[in-house]
């Protein structure tokens, strides 16, 4: 065992000391050190959070409304239940889209049934029916409705499926999707992703027909890109440049028509495996559409991914992929030349959700930086297996990290950058650590694709080499 690993294990053991014994036994399974050659990261995951520890996790509603469904722009997503859930998730995720908000697009709006006590006591189905009528009247260009269940819905026994079916019939087969994503279901956002995926399968694929579109041998769908700060756009442009036809974006800047047409594509390309592997597997099984995971963070992974995607197509596409890689080489080179000298050897600790705890590692490495710790908010074992292809020997791994643990790990390892979310940002900045939000791109982005990489590099430099960190300690 290398000295690094021993050292890191000691840190973990020390951090665990704070817990009551029962909790220590649970938490120690989620913390480990990656050892080269092992098939996974040696941690348990996707398990209930221990109460009271200050988890960073969210809930199933966040996974469905906030992640999967919310960005579908021409549908209205009702936050069904009390007012808070919809309020806190209102426009907070930066899913960019193009459309006239309030008229033909609705992403940055908060539609809620604003449950009152009487709705809890007598049930909310009648209210939900009326809400759908009012939506139809006031927002006539909406192309569908989803019902995003908040905690009380499942507890009071409302039948949102019956309401949805009834109203769909009444409105000539309108797409109305009931989603059972109550926040108490499952252990994190993750189950919400799965539930939302399943509702697309059950309430869209099996039931809806869109306008006929011509198909081509080059049709693909981008799956699992939420267009945060425009990520899906700076990805799409590369796919189009290599001659592919992007029929659908799931779900950033996406529309119901795109969802409906996806089963006609030749290949599903999957960015966020965690949140959308379910629907990809379903389309493989049912329609025989292969899917491939890709990574558009940083030039090394982008080139690798473009080639991997091209390999599913003919020579023309393969040649085009090379052309695209060549086209952006100058940009990439100039970006790396400018920023790498400023970032070489800097260390990073990550804690994010979805695909990012592994996917962004390559982009940091393109800039000469090293990720020395990483973990998933709501990852599963298959995420940790995939992570082994990215991390180096001795990387500290923390699953569903608690506020306390994260602070202690950072104190012990003293990275040059902490990259996590809004709840963590100010904690580490107070401690004097440069920080970037890696959910919202800290209001920047896009970070995907070649265009995004330049922004990513600039942002990391701006965080790490910011003069403010030199002034955190008073000279007196």
């Amino acid at each position, binding site marked *: 065992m290398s000295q690094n690993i021993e050292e890191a294990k000691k840190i973990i053991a020390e951090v665990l000391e704070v*817990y*009551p014994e029962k909790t220590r036994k649970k938490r120690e399974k989620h913390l480990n050190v990656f050892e080269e050659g092992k098939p996974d990261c040696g941690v348990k995951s996707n398990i209930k959070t*221990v*109460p*009271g*520890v*200050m*988890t960073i*996790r*969210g*809930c199933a509603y966040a996974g469905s409304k906030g992640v999967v469904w919310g960005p579908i722009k*021409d549908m209205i997503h009702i936050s069904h*239940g*009390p*007012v*808070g*859930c919809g*309020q806190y998730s*209102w426009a*907070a995720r930066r899913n960019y889209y193009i459309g*006239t*908000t*309030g*008229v*033909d697009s609705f992403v940055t709006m*908060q*539609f809620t049934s604003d449950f009152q*006590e009487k709705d809890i006591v007598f049930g909310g189905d009648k209210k939900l029916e*009326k*809400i759908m009528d*009012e939506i139809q009247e*006031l927002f006539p*260009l909406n192309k569908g409705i989803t019902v995003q269940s*908040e*905690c*009380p819905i499942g*507890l009071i026994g409302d039948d949102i499926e019956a309401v949805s079916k009834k109203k769909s019939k009444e409105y000539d087969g309108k797409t109305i999707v009931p989603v059972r994503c109550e*926040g*108490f279901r*499952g252990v994190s956002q993750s189950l919400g992703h799965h539930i939302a995926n399943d509702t697309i399968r059950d309430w869209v694929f099996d039931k809806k027909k869109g306008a006929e579109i011509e198909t081509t041998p080059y049709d693909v769908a981008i799956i699992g890109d939420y267009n945060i700060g425009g990520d899906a756009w*700076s990805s*799409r*442009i590369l796919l189009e440049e290599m001659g592919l036809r992007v029929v659908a974006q799931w779900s950033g800047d996406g*529309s119901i*028509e795109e969802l409906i*047409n996806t089963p006609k594509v030749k290949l599903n390309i999957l960015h966020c495996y965690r949140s959308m592997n379910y629907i990809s597997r379903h389309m493989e099984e049912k329609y025989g559409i292969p899917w491939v995971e890709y990574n558009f963070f940083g030039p090394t992974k982008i080139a690798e991914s473009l080639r991997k995607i091209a390999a599913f197509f003919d020579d023309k596409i393969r040649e085009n992929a090379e052309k695209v890689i060549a086209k952006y080489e100058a940009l990439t080179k100039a*970006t790396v030349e*400018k920023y790498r000298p400023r970032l070489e050897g800097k260390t990073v600790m990550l804690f994010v959700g979805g695909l990012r705890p592994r996917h962004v590692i390559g982009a940091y490495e393109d800039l000469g930086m090293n990720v020395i710790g990483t973990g998933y908010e709501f990852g599963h074992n298959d995420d940790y297996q995939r992570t082994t292809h990215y991390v180096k020997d001795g990387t500290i791994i923390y699953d569903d990290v608690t*506020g306390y643990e994260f602070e202690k790990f950072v104190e012990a390892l003293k990275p040059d950058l902490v990259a996590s979310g*809004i*709840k963590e*940002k100010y904690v580490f900045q*107070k*401690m004097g650590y440069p920080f970037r939000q890696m959910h919202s791109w800290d209001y*920047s982005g896009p970070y995907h694709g*070649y*265009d995004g990489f330049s922004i990513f590099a*600039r942002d990391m430099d701006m965080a790490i080499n910011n003069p403010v960190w030199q002034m*955190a300690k*008073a000279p007196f």
Partner: protein
Amino acid sequence: MSQNPKHVLDHFNLFREPEYVEMFENKKKNFENPHPQEKVAEIIEWTKTEEYRELNFKREALTVNPAKTCQPLGAVFLALGFEETLPFVHGSQGCVAYYRSHLSRHFKEPTSCVSSSMTEDAAVFGGLNNMIDGLANAYAMYKPKMIAVSTTCMAEVIGDDLNAFIKNAKEKGSVPQEYDVPFAHTPAFVGSHITGYDNALKGILEHFWAGKERSETDLINIVMGFDGYSVGNIREVKRILSEMGVNFLLVGDTSDVFDTPTDGTFRMYMGGTRLSDMQEAVNAKATVSFQEYNTPKSLEYAASLGQKTLAFHYPIGIRATDRWLMAISELSGKAIPESLKLERGRLVDAVADSTSHLHGKKFALYGDPDQMLGLSEFLMELGVEPVHVLATNGGKEWEERMNALFASSPYGTGCHAWPGRDLWHMRSLLFTEPVDFLIGNTYGKYLERDTGTPLIRIGFPIFDRHHHHRYPTVGYQGAMNVLVKILDKVFDEMDKNTNVPSKTDYSYDIIR
């Protein structure tokens, strides 16, 4: 390819480059099956009409873009105002992630709060074990002096009994028997964040005061209510009261915990009302609330113990501050010092200097009920007409008070209070009865975009402007800040509307 590492193009400009614009057009045309442009244009225009307004105001079930949020946020906010106190929310964990994010996005500060992380099994069997383990873990890890418990709607729907659960947890040794664990039931389906503030406050008052023998002192308890400007306002109120020499206790003091320094140390806890002071506070002669609608039950409880109670509506501006100061003076027997009279004179001076640029302007505003009363009164002092005043969490009684306020000034003629309405209603109001300016929180920017009404950001949350929470909005100094904020926007708009060379720029004056 337009990206350039020498001058990096952000999302602001990158996507305006021709290759992206073309891509967007093709995506829409080929894959989105969009509504015809004429149809979209027709509906856009329709949403601006009287007819649409009428339909919009007929809504009975649907809420769109409300200006309120749920109870536990207010409870968490209040709990953070006590010495080394950790808010603990019993119920689903996602809620806590949301409260923490929401408060951090506004204050640009860490928000510490834990959840009992209840899931399906707890939904069936109740969350007792979550409470037992949760209190034990939070106590061991974060070493708070007090854990203040509130609830999410999940725990409320299944009917978890906090009192019994906490007793049980103490018996199981999660925390010591005498350890402070005040609690409040804060169902999200009743009231709003200001109700949660009240419930949590009452829970804490009861925890420290119930069963205590009262021996009255000259102490005055000051309660501020839920306030996005708590950092600036609490410090300002403390300054004023100190200057008057009043013996006071700020109950729920969030001014420090939401304004910690960056100096190499993360302070999970900072400042806050001392727990020992809370013990003493039962003896106070009075409890004074800055925001009546934030504290009805708490004041009722204080009164039931024999304390005098007084409540204001977010005193902002000249006369409201006068009334507040005079009331405090009468209550405490302390004179209002010359220094504050001077501050008042300076504020009146500033108003006199600028009033001609405000006089007769029409404003729309929305926010919490007390803040709407306070702001409207100040606007009328400036000669401004608060034409549409909306509070999603305001009720009938608030509406009556607003109407009485309108009736008290010629500038209130034709003004209207809108209780229980949301920002989609406001959109119709702004189209059908346009005003010159809009006052509201960050979400008001969508109204600014759609209706062209310039937005002056005052309220909660403010996510897209920084640091304003550090400056007071109450007292004479606060009124000065609000005045300047309004004037800056008025002048900016004046310049924006007069800057076309050889067309309008004769009015592009350098002296205003």
